């Protein structure tokens, strides 16, 4: 780490990329991209999916050599592409997908392939001791002897950061670190980032959640369509201007848009005394055309309740009815026949079959309706899929493109199409905008307003405030029980306070 130099000799930027161009075949991933990160700051990198953030990260960490342009660290040219240790001593990235090996202990993970020992024989004692010292140095409170699978997401991140620092890197890239954390954990992460920042660590912080950028970063760089757009102090760029820079147009988020007068149509879903351990004794009514939000931290039981309603889980006790008829539990097929469509919590795990085409994925829920006797007529399938692609504005080459070739936002739209295909009477959206760019998020939430007008009821399950804005009312879960209800027009502070259980 360079120490502070006198003012007349300005400190070279810790990391600097300039004139970076990177193509993959005919796709331009980066065009004349640049980034300057000064030592000691937390620098946000924002942009919609496909803006070129991931490619830039791969260039900055030496995984892809750029076609043109150069990367410099502390004013010096970056190590040569093959020099992994050289790169590791300059920069490290904590990816959204953990690179921790679950079956090895924390200590082994810290010293993978560089285990301390003598003449190739590993000294386990020394490894455990050095691991403990390393964790101590960076104040990570984890037992080095436990298998890494026993750590939660947050501790794994901290272990990864400690490992990166132990290679000598003082520039850490965090790729959507908050995506899988609940709000208390996010707060802890930010506290940790601030204290590391004080000990001289520089962060490049990537997130879809703009309020986090304001909370923890000093500078922000915006990318759009593979190009650098702007780099500014966070304080000079209000949220509306930031969204505008990301999307190229003014956005309208941040208002509760649900109906304020109570919805008085017929009750569609009636839940009585439902319990399954993750949630207890839940009563809930959703009327026709009503949009109800379920908020709460990640362990509050809100997702488990939603998964029960869609048939993925079986409750221990209690009942639910749809339009007066009892709702069968534990069977997705029957829940769908009862009129419940849903977007599952994790599109990669439950939402999509990666190797199958867009059309196949989008019509998976209605495969029995694409021809007589369960036949699937390719022309019919393609027509249904093409309509969904048009209706949801999915950016794809067409129904035959494999779905894993799509960007995150468009993949999520395919999952939405799959849910809407059954023409649901009740649509349940679990984390509908997780890992999705601003524009796609708007489009996905826009669907809620569209279908409610046709009398479809919607339940939005999320702790993302923007997801909850279209709701007529928001129910807050805390430790498995509904503890608060907010009508449309709620203000962010009150809602967050009741999610945190401090109201």
């Amino acid at each position, binding site marked *: 780490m360079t120490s502070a130099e006198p003012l007349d000799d300005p400190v070279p930027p810790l990391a600097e990329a300039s004139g970076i161009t990177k193509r993959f075949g005919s796709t331009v991933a980066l065009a004349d991209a640049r980034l300057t990160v000064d030592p000691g700051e937390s620098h946000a990198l924002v942009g919609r999916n496909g803006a070129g953030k991931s490619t830039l990260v791969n260039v900055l960490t030496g995984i892809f050599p750029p076609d043109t342009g150069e990367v410099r660290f502390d004013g010096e040219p970056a190590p040569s592409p093959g020099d992994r240790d050289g790169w590791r001593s300059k920069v490290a990235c904590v990816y959204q997908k953990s690179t921790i090996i679950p079956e090895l202990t924390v200590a082994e993970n810290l010293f993978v392939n560089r285990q301390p020992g003598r003449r190739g024989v590993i000294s386990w004692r020394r490894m455990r001791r050095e691991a403990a010292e390393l964790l101590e140095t960076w104040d990570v409170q984890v037992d080095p002897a436990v298998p890494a699978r026993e750590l939660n997401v947050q501790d794994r991140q901290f272990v990864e950061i400690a490992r990166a620092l132990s290679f000598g890197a003082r520039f850490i890239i965090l790729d959507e670190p908050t995506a899988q954390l609940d709000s208390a954990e996010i707060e802890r992460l930010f506290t940790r980032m601030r204290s590391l920042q004080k000990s001289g660590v520089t962060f490049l912080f990537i997130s879809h959640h703009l309020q986090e950028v304001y909370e923890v970063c000093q500078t922000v760089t915006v990318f759009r369509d593979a190009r650098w757009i702007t780099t500014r102090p966070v304080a000079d760029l209000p949220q509306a201007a930031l969204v505008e820079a990301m999307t190229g147009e003014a956005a309208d988020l941040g208002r509760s848009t649900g109906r304020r007068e109570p919805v008085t149509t017929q009750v569609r879903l009636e839940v009585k005394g439902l319990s399954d351990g993750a949630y207890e004794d839940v009563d809930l009514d959703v009327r026709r055309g009503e949009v109800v939000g379920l908020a709460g931290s990640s362990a509050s039981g809100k997702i488990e309740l939603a998964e029960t309603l869609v048939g993925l889980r079986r409750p221990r006790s209690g009942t639910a009815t749809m339009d007066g008829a009892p709702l069968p539990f534990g069977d997705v*097929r029957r829940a769908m026949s009862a009129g419940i469509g849903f977007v599952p919590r994790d599109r990669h*795990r*439950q939402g999509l*079959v990666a190797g*199958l085409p867009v059309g*196949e994925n989008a019509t*998976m829920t209605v495969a029995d309706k*694409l021809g007589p006797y*369960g036949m699937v007529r390719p022309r019919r399938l393609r027509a249904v899929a*093409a309509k969904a692609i048009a209706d949801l504005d999915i950016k794809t080459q067409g129904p035959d493109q494999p779905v894993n070739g799509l960007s995150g936002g468009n993949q999520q739209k395919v999952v939405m199409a799959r849910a809407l295909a059954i023409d649901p009477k009740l649509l349940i959206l679990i984390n509908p905008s997780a890992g999705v760019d601003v524009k796609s998020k708007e489009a996905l939430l826009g669907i809620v307003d569209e279908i409610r007008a046709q009398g479809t009821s919607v339940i939005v399950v999320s702790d993302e405030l923007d997801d909850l804005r279209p709701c007529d009312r928001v129910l807050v879960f805390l430790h498995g029980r509904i503890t608060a209800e907010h009508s449309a027009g709620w203000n962010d502070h009150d809602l967050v306070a009741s999610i945190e259980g401090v109201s």
Partner: protein
Amino acid sequence: MTEAMAKPRAAAGDRAGSGAMLRRLREFTLVPALIALVVLGAVVNDSFLTERNIISILGASAALALVVLAESLILITGKIDLSLESTVGIAPGLGALLVIPAASAGFGTKWPAWLGILAIFVVGGAIGAFNGFLSVKLRLNAFIVSLAMLIVLRGLLTGATEGKTLFDMPSSFFSIATTTFLKLPMSVWLAVACFAAAGFVLRYHRLGRSLYAIGGNPEAARAAGIRVERVTWAVYTIAGVLAAAAGLCLTGYVGAINANQGQNMIFTVMAAAVIGGISMNGGKGTMTGAITGVLLLGVVDNLLTLAQVASFWKQAIYGAIILFALVVSRVTSGQAQE
């Protein structure tokens, strides 16, 4: 919005069309290799391209084809069943034991022949259902549990026959391989019909499509309302029935049931399936690919016989050719075999 949407959609349609075309072509990547082998065979041996020899290749491949079909269905669903080769032996074996007299090592139950043949399929289905139970309901690892079943079933057949070869079956036990239609044995027609039916269902029926979804991502399939357990179980059962049918074809082809009927067959089955582009990781593969895999190995086997390769060396050469075919199909398809 509608106007803006219309254009890109039309363009997307064209590109998607050519993409689908390309994918369709991929199914036939083995065809050039097959043609090359046939040409090679015709050049090196005069008797290769004769009608008699071609019928012989097809007749000899029918049983293998049915087991490859069974295994392919299971592999596409994301599972594996090694015990199919033992089903090939034990299903017709039990059927025969129920029919033949005690003097010929039978059980002495002396069932009528038609009931014995029906029993073959019931036994195959029951074994498949049991394998499904172990892997779907008890959630045991499909590979290791079917390996155990392979040994158990083989042992049961050896025990029940006391290691003897069964001869004394009524002629109806052999008629599937001895009766011909348009010069081809019925076993070949059976294999063709089963492949055609499976190919159609896999492509044009929701149940067939659901195999790809389950093999690709069972969680996502379940969340889309597909009854993953039920479908997987059914696939195991159908595979058992197909393996039993293969056993009957083999019995007719050989003219007897040996205690080791079907032994070591699973390696060839796996090779044919993987050469034919069926993914070991599930979710990928077509019947066109599987059948070309079978024909390729059938032709190779026949060529080695015609070339009168010393029988001690045949196995090594056969294995080397399978290895070579795997490498070639990896290169031509451009996709990693998983």
